[in-house]
């Protein structure tokens, strides 16, 4: 276990336990105001908990109100780096010196820190901006440099607080790729409201609502079969994993799901096709017409979800109106066809 964390903070009505295993990326999902950012501040040492205890590897970060002796390690001695929504690059330093700041603070020589900074700038694909000031960088460029700056101190735990939220939708996928690469083999906690971040970056998902953990588990399980209300609202995604072909992803069961690749995915590469249950149409007879994916399925379960009914099969789900369920006479065991337009399917590198 890398991080074992328990804390309460009555001011924010937070009462959370969180574990991060070695080399594991944990995504924390939850609605606004649920306490996600507070959680990160507590781990980083920017806030003090009322009660609780946190252990990072073999160091007790803090202990308060428990059986052990109260203790507190200040933020700069925790080995926990924090990446926020905005890059927060120091405006008076160049990109290179921003990245070198951490190593310098940890006692490296100026030249060693700069060498390390260049390495990390290259790692995030931002070496060409080394001599620029933050004011001369776009949001996406700035955030890449902020990633490099956080990694340059080789943190024992990396905290990411909605790192893509302030970015242009056109820039976010590229940064997500960078994060995907650098988070490999690293312990990290990423707070996000974007289910794709969780899907593509995290091994495990924790859902927080009203300051409490309401659900947690392996990413695929939580995202495809969420048990919490919030999880169901944002997740419940259909995911087909397989190998990339020319027109889509060939799933393990041989079915081809056509879709639009959000990024460069090479042929034969492992990929995942993602689509929302609300994008799926349910038919008794195979539908014709416009080009779309049609999958023959057997319904296993019908579940009310707000004003919709979620129709589940072994691996997929569709949201339809109660009227449609009645009209199509759907019930567990019914054979049906799920249809989804290729334009509703997003394909990512898996």
């Amino acid at each position, binding site marked *: 276990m890398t991080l074992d964390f328990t804390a309460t903070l009555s001011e924010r009505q937070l009462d959370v336990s969180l574990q991060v295993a070695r080399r594991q990326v944990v995504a924390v999902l939850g609605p606004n105001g649920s306490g996600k950012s507070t959680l990160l501040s507590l781990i980083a040492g920017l806030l003090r908990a009322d009660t609780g205890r946190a252990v990072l590897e073999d160091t007790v970060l803090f202990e308060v109100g428990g059986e052990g002796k109260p203790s507190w390690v200040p933020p700069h001695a925790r080995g926990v780096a924090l990446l926020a929504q905005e890059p927060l690059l120091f405006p008076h330093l160049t990109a290179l010196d921003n990245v070198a700041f951490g190593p310098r603070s940890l006692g490296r020589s100026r030249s060693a820190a700069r060498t390390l900074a260049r390495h990390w700038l290259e790692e995030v694909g931002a070496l060409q901006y080394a001599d620029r000031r933050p004011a001369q960088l776009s949001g996406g460029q700035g955030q890449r440099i902020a990633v490099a*700056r956080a990694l340059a101190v080789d943190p024992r735990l990396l905290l990411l607080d909605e790192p893509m939220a302030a970015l242009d939708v056109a820039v976010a996928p590229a940064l997500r790729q960078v994060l995907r690469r650098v988070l490999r083999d690293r312990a990290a906690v990423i707070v996000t409201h974007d289910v794709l971040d969780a899907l593509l970056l995290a091994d495990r998902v924790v859902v927080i609502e009203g300051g409490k953990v309401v659900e947690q588990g392996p990413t695929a399980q939580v995202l495809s079969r969420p048990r919490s209300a919030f999880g169901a609202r944002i997740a419940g995604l259909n995911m087909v994993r397989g190998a990339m072909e020319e027109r889509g992803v060939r799933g393990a069961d041989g079915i081809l799901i056509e879709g639009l690749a959000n990024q460069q995915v090479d042929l034969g590469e492992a990929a995942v096709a993602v689509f929302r249950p609300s994008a799926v149409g349910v038919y008794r007879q195979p539908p014709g017409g416009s080009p779309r994916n049609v999958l023959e399925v057997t319904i296993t379960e019908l579940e009310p979800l707000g004003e919709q009914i979620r129709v589940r099969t072994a691996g997929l789900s569709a949201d339809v109106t109660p009227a449609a369920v009645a009209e199509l006479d759907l019930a567990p065991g019914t054979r049906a066809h799920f249809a989804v337009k290729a334009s509703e399917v997003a394909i990512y590198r898996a």
Partner: protein
Amino acid sequence: MSRRAHVALPGWLFVPAAGGALFVVLPLAAMLTRVEWGDFLGLVSSDSSVDALLLSLRTSCASTLLCVLFGVPMAMVLARTSFRGQQLVRSLVLLPLVLPPVVGGIALLYTFGRRGLLGESLDVLGIQVAFATTAVVLAQTFVALPFMVVSLEGALRTAGGRFESVASTLGAGPTTVFRRVTLPLVLPGLFSGAVLAFARSLGEFGATITFAGSVQGVTRTLPVEIYLQRVTDPDAAVALSLVLVVVAVMVIGLARGRGSL
């Protein structure tokens, strides 16, 4: 600078606004009409004038330095910590802003004067503060320090603590954060605070004459010299006043040039 469209002001507002501006500018213009331009250089370069000018510049530089040395830590403590009674401390620290300088001078006299609270101890050590140049510097620092603290505390609050938080998670200890992040971030505020403190020191009169007296070359600063000359040599007083106006304009220009006043 962005060009923003403003909602139109009510027309009548311009009348009192122009009146107020005139009220500030007109006396300066009136003074200009009285300057003896032909003899200007002679008037400002008399021994006593040059002594007063040099003394003013020296003491103002010294008190500005003291304002930086004490004001920066004070502003940091006020902006970056919270403790019981902080509001009270802030009010007391800023008191010289609203206190009549003469009262400040009296207070200093009873602190550092020969019979003062600390004066007797200092006297034993052979240090005499009152009616020496040191007294001028103390009087100026007393009245100018709040300008430094207010200006810098505002800059610190505007900058916020987020960069400092990030720096600390990157392994920077409190001193490194202060030196490499906080200070560079608030440098414009520090600069304009120093400029304001310098200007206030240069113009200090009431506390100085009460606490430091008026000995040529020792405690007689430019404002004191102007006050004394006003009776015996009005032309010299006007000429020296003009020197102070020019210095003040330069100070404002300097602070404006940095875009932070």
